[in-house]
């Protein structure tokens, strides 16, 4: 890339292989090129530093050094500070952690929730981790996990039954989100394939379904689930509210996934379909081996985007009276012991969502990198 012309001091065709030029930046170089490259850039850098100087120390004090970590109620919290509200009262979050985590799940049965959380971690780890021995069995385990979790959480078959209304807090949030995410992907793929099917009836059904679901706000669907659905069902059949909500959340996410995946399918060169056909692969073989792996790879950013959206949308269930982490937290704010500690609560909830969404987003980036095979498409 250098513009200077080097007079040739060697025989043509005998130029030695040289190492690439050393990167000349280093820390100082980085600071120079990124923070002070121009007067405007320098001004922006200085303003930012000044701004951070203004807010960081006091935030740090409120969040950490001035905060109280254990107390029985807010009065005690404030008594321990230089002035009331001078720091965060994390004792509130600590004292509510069990409630936030388990909701009203009966205390003697909470070991089942713990096992479910543990198995969930194992399933996620095993399914996402590359180069893990026995990958096939991990995937099978991840596939049966939702059913295993349903049994553990709600009982039956030898376990004490627990009503679904006992679910609350983070447990409920995770149940809604994980169900929505894990069932919407296969359903969305099926809808996307159906929408591109050559069978007109199947195609029409998929189009109508997708367009209808996408055209209605999720809250409306949740109200339908909580109230209207009972009118459509045969009289006397009681259909659990949680299950109705899970179905709605899944269908909603699936409609979006379907459109993302359809975009991926359309992004594939038609030559891929033709090559698969010409080799004699059947429809299912070519989709499983050739088309979907590539289409899903193109769709990863969109799919993860939909996942993150539906994960965060799970808080909407509070509108129909289900107490997820946000609903439960808000209810807890009315507790006379902890009245008015909203900032602590919302910081905690934001952190909870942020950490999980950020993890999903990072994972999707690393997945994209891993699937990169030097092919531009």
């Amino acid at each position, binding site marked *: 890339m250098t513009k200077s012309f080097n007079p040739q001091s060697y025989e043509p065709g005998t130029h030695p292989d040289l190492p690439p030029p050393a990167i000349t930046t280093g820390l100082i170089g980085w600071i120079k090129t990124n923070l002070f490259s121009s007067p405007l850039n320098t001004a922006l850098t200085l303003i930012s530093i000044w701004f951070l100087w203004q807010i960081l120390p006091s935030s740090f004090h409120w969040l950490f050094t001035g905060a109280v970590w254990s107390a029985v109620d807010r009065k005690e919290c404030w008594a321990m500070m230089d002035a009331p509200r001078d720091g965060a009262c994390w004792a509130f979050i600590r004292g509510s952690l069990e409630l936030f985590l388990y909701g009203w799940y009966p205390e003697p049965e909470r070991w089942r929730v713990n096992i479910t959380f543990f198995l969930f971690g194992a399933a996620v780890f095993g399914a996402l981790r590359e180069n893990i021995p026995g990958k096939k069995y991990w995937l099978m385990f991840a596939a049966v996990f939702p059913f295993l979790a349903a049994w553990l959480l709600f009982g039956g078959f030898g376990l004490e039954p627990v009503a679904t209304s006992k679910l609350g807090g983070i447990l409920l949030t995770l149940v809604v989100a994980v169900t929505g995410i894990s069932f919407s992907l296969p359903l969305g793929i099926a809808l996307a394939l159906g929408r591109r099917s050559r069978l007109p009836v199947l195609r029409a059904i998929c189009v109508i379904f997708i367009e209808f679901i996408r055209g209605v706000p999720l809250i409306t669907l949740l109200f339908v689930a909580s109230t209207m659905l009972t009118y459509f069902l045969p009289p006397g059949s009681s259909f659990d509210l949680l299950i109705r909500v899970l179905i709605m959340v899944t269908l909603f996410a699936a409609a979006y996934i379907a459109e993302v995946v359809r975009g991926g399918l359309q992004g594939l*060169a038609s*030559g*891929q379909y*033709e*090559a*698969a*056909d*010409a*080799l*004699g*692969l*059947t429809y299912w*073989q070519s989709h499983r*081996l*050739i088309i979907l*792996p*590539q289409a899903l*790879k193109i769709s990863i950013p969109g799919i993860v985007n939909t996942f993150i959206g539906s994960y965060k949308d799970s808080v909407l269930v509070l509108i129909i009276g289900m107490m997820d982490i946000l609903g439960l937290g808000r209810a807890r704010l009315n507790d006379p012991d902890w009245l008015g500690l909203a900032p602590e609560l919302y910081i905690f909830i934001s952190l909870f969502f942020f950490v999980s969404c950020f993890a999903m987003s990072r994972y999707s980036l690393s997945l994209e990198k891993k*699937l990169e*095979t*030097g*092919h*531009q*498409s």
Partner: protein
Amino acid sequence: MNQDSKNASKSEDSIISICGMHKWFGDFHVLKNINLEVSRGERIVICGPSGSGKSTLIRCINHLEEHQQGDIVVEGTELTEDLKNIDTIRSEVGMVFQQFNLFPHLTVLENVMLAPVWVRKLPRAEAEEQAMSYLERVKIPEQVSKYPGQLSGGQQQRVAIARSLCMNPRIMLFDEPTSALDPEMIKEVLDVMIELAESGMTMLVVTHEMGFATAVAHRVIFMDGGEIIEEQPPKEFFENPQHDRTKLFLSQILHH
């Protein structure tokens, strides 16, 4: 379909027989009354101006395109709407594309092994052994664990040929296999095709490589406007073309 023309001119060793075949894209009549008999081991080069329907013709033979009238019989199996017939024919007919169409998410070896494992149901070890032998034949054995995106165009096209050959096809279709390649890579692909021709494969090749046509073709077919205009052994075709359009076409591709 047209029943009485079906048995009209089927010779003993005919491997492909196309009879009174027509095809339309919407209202556009792209192939008009195509009649073509190909005998086992015969090598045919198809040429003609752009848009004359060459690709469409050979794509009809493995049903990548559907014809609307007339009969196509490949290895005794008639191409109909019947999906089983189509699958049978496709597993007997290999195709090589202008744009290679390798599967970019699979390594070279996986590309080549895929169809034998899934369509022919070969055990993996056997499929791998066979794949390696074909990759050696097209001179790619060192690149087997690379991805197609890491290979040159000529290498990719040779892998694509190996991928088709791995299905042990009776017929190979080539649709302008060298026209997406840089000049210095054309030869390496043509060499592989010439070697294949020497092994006795039945080949239909759409190409404008006239050297290749002269060297290996038994017949050259000239198409224009969706019709077969002229059909000659290569020597007569180049030296003594009958039709004015053929002469015009030859003068255009030979003198520039």
